[in-house]
């Protein structure tokens, strides 16, 4: 136990500029895919229990940046990163890091709903089962809680054995959200979670995000600026791999500091 405390002391690093600590932090991060320089010297911090939106035109690095925080870029050939990424002050890139544990704390919801070809129950319970949890009562309770939290319980509670693939797109996405919530992460990363859904499902999920931020830290990549405006507390604008501007959503949208930001927001490109 003493070794752990030392580790914590060693790893913990206060932000120099502000006295409050960030839940998620990137320091001078560069990312390359082979020769392609995807992210250029990005530094930013995200506060706990806030929703941060990442906006910008296609291919400008938003998704890449998002995936740094649960290390999903590791699976891409020729991925290379320099700089530091921290969760709760601890560096998450390093030889000693157990990536599976990291992902239990940092969950992800994908653009196209990707439920497993199994029952609704099996989907939501999966994250628990792979940790070796076998207590059926415990799992059932967690599944119910997660489905309630993702606003799906009422619709499926009578038939949890139904295949998740038989649900509508919006429902499938909520299964994916429930499945992420079941393992009780502290961060939820969302990569354009509503871009393949109809407006009603989209609205429901946006409402969900609003409720979830009480307990979770949320980072959401979105193409839809109105969505960013509706849902987020802070916004970061990426352009061609650079972080152009980052601040409170209200400020970014009404009074952007950079011309490029203003051009993007007002629809002049993108």
């Amino acid at each position: 136990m003493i070794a752990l405390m030392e580790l914590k002391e060693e790893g913990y690093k206060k932000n120099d500029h502000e006295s409050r600590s960030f839940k998620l932090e990137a320091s001078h991060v560069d990312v390359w895919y082979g020769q392609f320089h995807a992210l250029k010297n990005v530094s930013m911090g995200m506060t706990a229990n806030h929703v941060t939106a990442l906006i910008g035109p296609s291919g400008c690095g938003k998704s890449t940046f998002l995936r740094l925080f649960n290390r999903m870029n590791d699976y891409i050939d020729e991925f290379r990163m320099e700089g530091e990424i921290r969760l709760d002050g601890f560096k998450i890139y390093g030889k000693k890091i157990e990536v599976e544990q990291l992902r239990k704390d940092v969950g992800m919801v994908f653009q196209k709903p990707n439920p497993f070809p199994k029952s609704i129950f099996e989907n939501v319970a999966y994250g628990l089962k792979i940790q070796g949890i076998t207590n059926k009562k415990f799992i059932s309770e967690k599944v119910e809680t997660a489905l309630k939290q993702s606003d799906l319980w009422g619709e499926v509670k009578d038939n949890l054995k139904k295949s998740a693939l038989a649900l509508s797109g919006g429902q499938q996405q909520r299964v994916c959200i429930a499945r992420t919530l079941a393992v009780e992460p502290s961060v939820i990363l969302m990569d354009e979670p509503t871009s393949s859904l109809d407006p009603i499902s989209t609205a429901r999920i946006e409402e969900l995000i609003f409720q979830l931020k009480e307990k979770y830290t949320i980072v959401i990549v979105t193409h839809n600026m109105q969505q960013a405006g509706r849902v987020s507390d802070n916004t970061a604008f990426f352009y061609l791999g650079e972080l152009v501007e980052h601040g409170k959503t209200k400020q970014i949208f009404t009074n952007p500091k950079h011309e490029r930001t203003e051009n993007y927001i007002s629809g002049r490109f993108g």
Partner: protein
Amino acid sequence: MQAGSSKKIPGFLFSGMRKIKEYLIEKSLLLSAFITILTTIGIILVLTVEAVNFFSEVSLISFFTDTEWTPLFEQKHFGILPLLTGTLLTTFIAIFVALPIGLSIAIYLNEYAPKGFRKTIKPALELLAAIPTVVYGFFALMVVTPFLQQIYPDLAGFNALSAGIVMGIMIIPFISSLSEDALFAVPKSLREASYGMGSTRLQTAMLVTVPAASSGIVVSIILAISRAVGETMIVAIAAGQQPRLTFDPTVPIETITAYIVQVSLGDVQHGTLEYRTIFAAGITLFALTFLLNNISFFLRKKYRQKYE
């Protein structure tokens, strides 16, 4: 596992038993894959060792130039040529049957046939390749030979012609399927250009699509040849057991593969020269098919690059 707290000790700082377990699983899976390498090594080793033993007693020159193969007789000759010509003769007849038919099928399915037809007929053709070869051997001996004897009464009961024809029927799908895939891969634009100039389907096929797909078609032919060379039961049943240096399809001959079967059925003792002859025959066969297969791989790589 509490949500939202930022002061807990993160679990991801521990590397654990899990990494060891994953490592072991990966290595056992690797071992299974490695068995395939061991198989190849085994084949090469076995054939080489016994062949070397064989060639310590029989000179390479006589092996390749003697015109008789009589290892089981009193007067022993160890010339591979009769077996080789037997194999090549039956293979040639088989290709002579399968190539025009297979290629025509490919062209027909590709240029003429409606899409639904193509989908249903392809598995039916694959059926031809799924029949056990011992059954084909029965057909060759019991149906084809008597039938041909009505046309040509001097045809021997065992001959290369019947076996070759039936082998040809068996390998039709090799040529038709692969050639059809090759034709399918030819860009639509080429075809449309040809039709745009008023060509018929046949002209388009012969002048545009087939030449464009030629390397793929050649690959299919080579693979079919390799399959025919390695075929055993059809020739063992219907072509005869008389090694004969000839290209006459109406008389009994013996192929490399049929010889190996003949010896295996008999009482040849392990460790004798006669025993080793099957490995000398085997390594010749292996060299032939290995060469053919690798030429086809090389060609396939080249032709894939063409369309990328």
